[in-house]
């Protein structure tokens, strides 16, 4: 079952163990090398917490189920702080081709809700397979250029 980043933002995150609501989905961090979701973040600023994808037991249309509240943790290093601040977001990030041309922002990301595997990047009215994603950071997501000539 495919899900989309844009539609998932703000979805409530609920503990499987206690059925308590833990917060709202704020950001999704992608492991670019493996083209899959690495972790999710809930809440904003000082209250922001992360949860690794391994501890997400269900990503459904109405809620994101996390194994247990103890799976949530506060940012421990610069990268995790960047994650909760949204600086690592693929969604909304400037897409650059590897040839240095601006392709506009990433408007959506399609992924497999069961595995967390990223399937497709949506750039406005254009789509790129996840395999075209070469790298992503705070400045841009780098998209493989179509082979020329």
């Amino acid at each position: 079952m495919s899900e989309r980043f844009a539609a998932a933002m703000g979805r409530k995150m609920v503990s499987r163990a206690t059925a308590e609501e833990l917060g709202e989905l704020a950001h999704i961090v992608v492991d670019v090398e493996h083209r899959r979701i690495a972790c999710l973040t809930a809440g904003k600023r000082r209250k922001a917490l992360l949860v690794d994808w391994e501890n997400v037991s269900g990503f459904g249309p109405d809620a994101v189920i996390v194994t247990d509240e103890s799976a949530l943790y506060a940012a421990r290093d610069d990268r995790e702080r960047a994650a909760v601040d949204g600086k690592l977001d693929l969604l909304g990030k400037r897409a650059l081709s590897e040839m240095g041309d601006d392709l506009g922002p990433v408007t959506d990301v399609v992924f497999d809700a069961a595995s967390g595997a990223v399937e497709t990047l949506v750039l406005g009215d254009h789509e790129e397979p996840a395999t075209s994603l070469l790298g992503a950071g705070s400045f841009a997501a780098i998209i493989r250029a179509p082979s020329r000539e």
Partner: protein
Amino acid sequence: MRSLVTGSSIRGLPVVTIADGEDVAEVRDVLYSPEAGRVVGLTLNKRGFLAGRRREVLPAETIHAIGRDAVMVDDESSLLLPADAPEEVGAPPSGRDVTGDEVLTDGGTSLGQVRDVVVLVGSNGEVVGYEIETASGGTGYIPLPVQLAVSGSALVVPEATKEFVEDDLVGLGAAVDEFRSTVGI
């Protein structure tokens, strides 16, 4: 049809790593070698408002592509300290600026003065022409042969170049290949 940019429009472009999508520097200046007929490297500034100069330079060999919106490198190790870079980039000789040089055809006609270099988009610094100020004060674009004579104050281009003075970069982009086949290079 080739997509082209002037050297001055490369200045200020972010230098972005393909591996991790970071803007690690921005272009300070374009180092052009008239002898080589190409960009040999870029000097760099830091990113940000109070950005000063970055010591590292970017030799053409480590540039993945000069694009319209960014200069792409594989990763930050592409930026080299001047001592580790080729001499023409790490310690470029002064007085090699072609700006202001007169462009003469080998038939003895002056086409104007060089104002800027024209770089092929997507290359790592291939220069395909010059922006010139024509005798009438207008702007023209001329294609370059791969080899040409340069003296430091003038350069001599094939007579056929006269027929290929274009009004804009789009025109030059369309003319480069025809010009090159005409002058047989």
